[in-house]
């Protein structure tokens, strides 16, 4: 765990730094993917940048809307750099909507463009695992397994390590390269790369959430994240089935 990186007089938040590195590397990979697919990498870069800015702005406004009295008394707080003052759900929704609007208005091909973004999302998933490892967030439940790690006063499941390993496997599955055996077999079908990434990530979350010590619970002791991930998985399986079956029908 290394939440703060001391560089001379500067104290840098390591998780934020790792996420920024993930964004940079993910964009590089997505742009390379765009070149491979003969699409314009510049437009992809703009798409990500605009969606990101819209996401951050709406996340901050969403947070301010949650606590209007706090921001009325201190309106300059709207411009604070504090990452705690964000509403992630509102930000994610705004980023998705902005992304779709940009694709529509720039006349980019819908599903192939979303497939290009998969490379960025897969790298960000690895970076998020590393950020969790650095900050200690997403920690595991107490456990006495031989590979348990000492964290916060107990031996625990190394959930952050599980998260990184699974994210790396998923990244390998969706990696944009001709040597990837799935490239010609199924990724030729638009949307399959994104849906496979989302489906695998949802399945991983359902499995890993069970070992987390910081889950949010719902009625009946069910874990909120698992329920959402199950719904995403169901949606992905349904959409994947629709996209893959027309190719297979003639051979049957």
């Amino acid at each position, binding site marked *: 765990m290394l939440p703060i990186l001391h560089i001379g007089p500067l104290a840098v938040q390591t998780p934020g730094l790792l996420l920024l590195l993930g964004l940079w590397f993910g964009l590089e990979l997505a742009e390379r993917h765009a070149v491979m697919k003969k699409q314009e990498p510049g437009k992809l870069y703009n798409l990500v940048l605009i969606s990101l800015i819209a996401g951050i702005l709406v996340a901050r406004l969403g947070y301010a809307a949650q*606590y209007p009295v706090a921001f009325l008394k201190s*309106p300059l*707080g709207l411009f604070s750099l504090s990452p705690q003052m964000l509403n992630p759900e509102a930000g994610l929704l705004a980023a998705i909507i902005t992304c779709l609007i940009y694709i529509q208005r720039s006349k980019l091909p819908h599903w192939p463009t979303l497939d290009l973004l998969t490379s960025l999302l897969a790298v960000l998933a690895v970076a998020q695992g590393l950020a969790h490892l650095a900050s200690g967030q997403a920690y595991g439940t107490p456990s006495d397994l031989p590979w348990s790690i000492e964290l916060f*006063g107990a031996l625990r499941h190394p959930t952050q390590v599980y998260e990184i390993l699974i994210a790396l496997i998923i990244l390998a599955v969706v990696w944009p390269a001709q040597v990837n055996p799935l490239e010609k077999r199924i990724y030729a079908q638009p949307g399959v790369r994104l849906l496979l990434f989302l489906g695998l990530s949802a399945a991983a979350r359902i499995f890993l959430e069970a070992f987390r010590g910081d889950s949010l*619970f719902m009625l009946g*002791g*069910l874990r909120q994240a698992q329920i959402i991930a199950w719904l995403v998985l169901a949606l992905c399986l349904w959409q994947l*089935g629709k996209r893959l079956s027309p190719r297979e029908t003639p*051979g049957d």
Partner: protein
Amino acid sequence: MRSRRIYTFFSLTVLMISAGWIFFSRALPGASGSEDFPIARPGFLAPDFTLTTLQGESVQLKDLRGRTVILNLWASWCPPCRAEMPALQRVSQDYPPDELVILAVNLTSQDSREAAAQFAQENNLTFPILLDESGVVGALYQTSALPTTFFIASDGTIREMIVGGPISEALLRAQVNQLTGEVR
């Protein structure tokens, strides 16, 4: 057609196994989201301590259960710590003491009692300035950078931890609104 049937069977199997796993891994009745031993991390009980104020009064964290507590670890030589104190003072004035308590723990082992007292006087700070002369609280709260601020709910659980500063006044108010709202 056959491969479509195989895919449907595969999908349903995956969804059923997942649903089974979700049910199997649910929390047992009586289990809570937070762990009931003290560690200076969100989701855990705030480690207890007793310190004396600049005026010589003794304050124990455990005695403040039932109220929202902002625990701010600071030193007078740290510029962001100095910058955020006026915001803490303004917030403390807006809430009655039976709802919100602000404890500013001066890491006196890395600072001095005189410097802390002078800073408090210059800025008219009315909330308790606690003196951590042995460095025990700094170590207990694993202070890796200054300032560090903990938001502690009325049940003694740490809800949020902000490392670095100066902390935004809006964030202070939002966190306090949320925590005091839970009590009401």
